[in-house]
């Protein structure tokens, strides 16, 4: 079969869009959490460890985007004969993963920021519950990645 370079390019671009969503979401989420962290540390510097833990949680979405990008690149490398339909499907899946990571990380950052603000008043006891709540939102990012990889295997 002839090689369709545009289809290949769309497949690669889909992976890049997935990572793009991850970096946007992580930046927004960590930005909100870290801004709250600075305010909290001004009030109670002993909460540094908890602030660092909670502020870092939205970073994981970037790595889910990276996993998707690597999977898409490996898929296109292994199937150089992919047609335009599959190239477009990969691009669409990349947008889906990008949106899942972006919104999941942004909202996770807001949850972490809410928890960080309460750290001085609860003397750090809110950390564990905040992590559990944040993981709930994280699940959407994980599902976005897993469902895209599942769809990739169904496309063949």
């Amino acid at each position, binding site marked *: 079969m002839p090689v369709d370079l545009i289809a290949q390019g769309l497949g690669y671009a889909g992976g890049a869009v997935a990572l793009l969503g991850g970096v946007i979401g992580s930046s927004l989420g960590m*930005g909100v959490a*870290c801004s709250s962290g600075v305010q909290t540390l001004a009030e109670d510097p002993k909460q540094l460890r908890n602030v660092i833990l909670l502020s870092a949680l939205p970073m994981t979405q970037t790595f889910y985007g990276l996993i998707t990008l690597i999977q898409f690149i490996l898929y296109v490398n292994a199937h150089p004969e992919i047609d335009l339909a599959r190239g477009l499907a990969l691009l669409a899946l990349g947008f889906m993963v990008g949106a899942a990571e972006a919104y999941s990380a942004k909202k996770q950052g807001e949850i972490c920021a809410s928890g960080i603000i309460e750290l001085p008043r609860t003397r750090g006891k809110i950390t564990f519950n905040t992590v559990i709540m944040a993981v709930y939102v994280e699940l959407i990012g994980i599902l976005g990645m897993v469902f895209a990889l599942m769809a990739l295997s169904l496309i063949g």
Partner: protein
Amino acid sequence: MDPLAQGLGIAGGVIALLGGAIGASLGIGHAGSASTATLTIDPRRASSVYLLTALPMANVFFGLIVMLAFIIHTTSGEISLAKGIAMLALGAMTACAEIFSGIKMGEVCAAGIAVIPRTKGKIVLNTLIISVYVGIIGILGMVFALMAISLIP
């Protein structure tokens, strides 16, 4: 040699630098606005304020590294149209990483700068640590883009 593929690859690098420049400008602008207010209250904290205000500038250099790598990669060998499209998309990804990371790093630095007088400068180290966290996203955007172009044949 496919001039369209080459052009797309180089454009990807330029877009990455464009993102770095936008993110750094917005971030420094945000931190700089908070700095003037803080220095009005406590002019002795100028060195700490200068340090925190300059942090988002790093994102311009991350964008520059990506642009140089993309240009070298594009001009040193023949690249296909598929790789050209991929480089354009990776450049856009890096640009977004640098823009959002730069803006948010500026906001974190501004939050720290605002409380410098109240904490008598003790917040500077913690603000540095916390803002570097957000800066990591800019570094990851650069590293992952360079890693991805090495994976694409």
